[in-house]
């Protein structure tokens, strides 16, 4: 009855996603790099143009380091080292 539906759901490729190389966490690969809220240049890599924190599935961080990054970015925002939302246009 639902023969034409089931193969499509289970094995059929609905969306052929191009194979992506598994990104490796930058901070696990290189132990020298530390996460610090006082260093906005490293943190800037992990925020988008609008100032949002880039999610783990895109940045490729492991969960431990993503947590540290998130904390650091939020601290840096408090003391105006990083923007809260995008770049402000000064009049």
């Amino acid at each position, binding site marked *: 009855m639902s023969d034409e539906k089931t193969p499509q759901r289970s094995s059929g490729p609905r969306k052929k996603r191009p194979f992506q190389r598994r990104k490796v966490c930058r901070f696990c690969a290189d132990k020298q790099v530390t996460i610090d809220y*006082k260093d906005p240049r490293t943190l800037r890599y992990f925020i988008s143009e609008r100032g949002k924190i880039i999610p783990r599935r895109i940045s490729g961080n492991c969960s431990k380091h993503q947590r540290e990054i998130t904390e650091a970015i939020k601290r840096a925002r408090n003391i105006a080292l990083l923007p*809260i939302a995008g770049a*402000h246009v000064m009049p």
Partner: protein
Amino acid sequence: MRMYETIFIVKPDLSEEETKGLTAKVQEVITGMKGDFKRLEDWGARKLAYPIEKFNRGRYYFLRFDGDAPLIAELERRLRLDDKVLRYQSVKLEKEVVAPVAAPAKPVVEEHVEEAAEPAVESE
């Protein structure tokens, strides 16, 4: 004793003696409440990522000290009451930061040329 670091941003257009007075007062609070003053760094006037109280730039101070909870409460109270301070943030450190972070790596070059000559404010 816990390890703390505090960053506070003061208004960029203060006179020399006003900043001197502020930093002296901060050290006085720490030593007066049996804290262990480690160092105070002047990062100079830097551009803020967003305006605070209509200021586009602010003068950053980085303070590193050991102390107890009443000390940090008093210090934050003083900073909060002070009009010259735009923003402050205290962080408790889990462990000693070994490498000094190169945070003041991009100093503002356009103005305050005399800052480079006096980074050691704590030597008084």
